[in-house]
């Protein structure tokens, strides 16, 4: 069985400050992990994915995530938030093929 826990339902930051969205995973095998973003009334967009090639994964729009096996974590970070980053973010664990298991989501609020 696999699951993810997103530790914050809402995160509020000011524009220009760092972003940290936390995710812990549970998997009975070597996990495949993703972060997706969902803007209002839009579909899900892939930000980045962990493929075991490197523990620090760089994604689009300046986001990155670090895989820490000892902590079973895959936190998403960005050095400087932009107003356009306001959206809902989902941490996802995969069995590698057919099944994506989503966390409950973290709503990122960015204030000017």
């Amino acid at each position, binding site marked *: 069985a696999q699951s993810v826990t997103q530790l914050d339902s809402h995160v509020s930051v000011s524009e220009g400050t760092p972003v940290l969205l936390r995710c812990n995973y549970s998997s009975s095998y070597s996990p*495949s992990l*993703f972060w*997706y973003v969902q803007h209002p*009334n*839009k*579909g*899900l*967009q*892939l930000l980045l*994915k962990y*493929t075991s090639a490197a523990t620090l994964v760089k994604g689009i729009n300046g986001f990155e995530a670090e895989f820490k096996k000892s902590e079973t974590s895959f936190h998403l970070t960005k050095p400087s938030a932009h107003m356009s980053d306001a959206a809902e973010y*989902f941490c996802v664990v*995969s069995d*590698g*093929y*057919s*099944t*994506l*298991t*989503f*966390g*409950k*989501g973290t709503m990122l609020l960015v204030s000017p």
Partner: protein
Amino acid sequence: DAGVTQSPTHLIKTRGQQVTLRCSPISGHKSVSWYQQVLGQGPQFIFQYYEKEERGRGNFPDRFSARQFPNYSSELNVNALLLGDSALYLCASSLSSGEYPETQYFGPGTRLLVL
């Protein structure tokens, strides 16, 4: 390049009715997956189809069914609608070319409201 497309964008039905949702994958993608996203929750996996065969099924009742056509498009059918079926239904496609882990690309969704 065209992404994953879904139709209709919005739908209103009444309890007990049946609904069919449609999805066209990205050109060249052979696999289609369906997810249900209830308001305030993350998407939940319903089905995956590859080359017209079911490759995975989530924990949903038999009222939910799907199929994939030779052109790789897909339909999701839900019978005997319940109020709790109101949700955003997302379709995702993937290449299934041996990539690991497989990346799924999502469409904009169909918002279903059951009254």
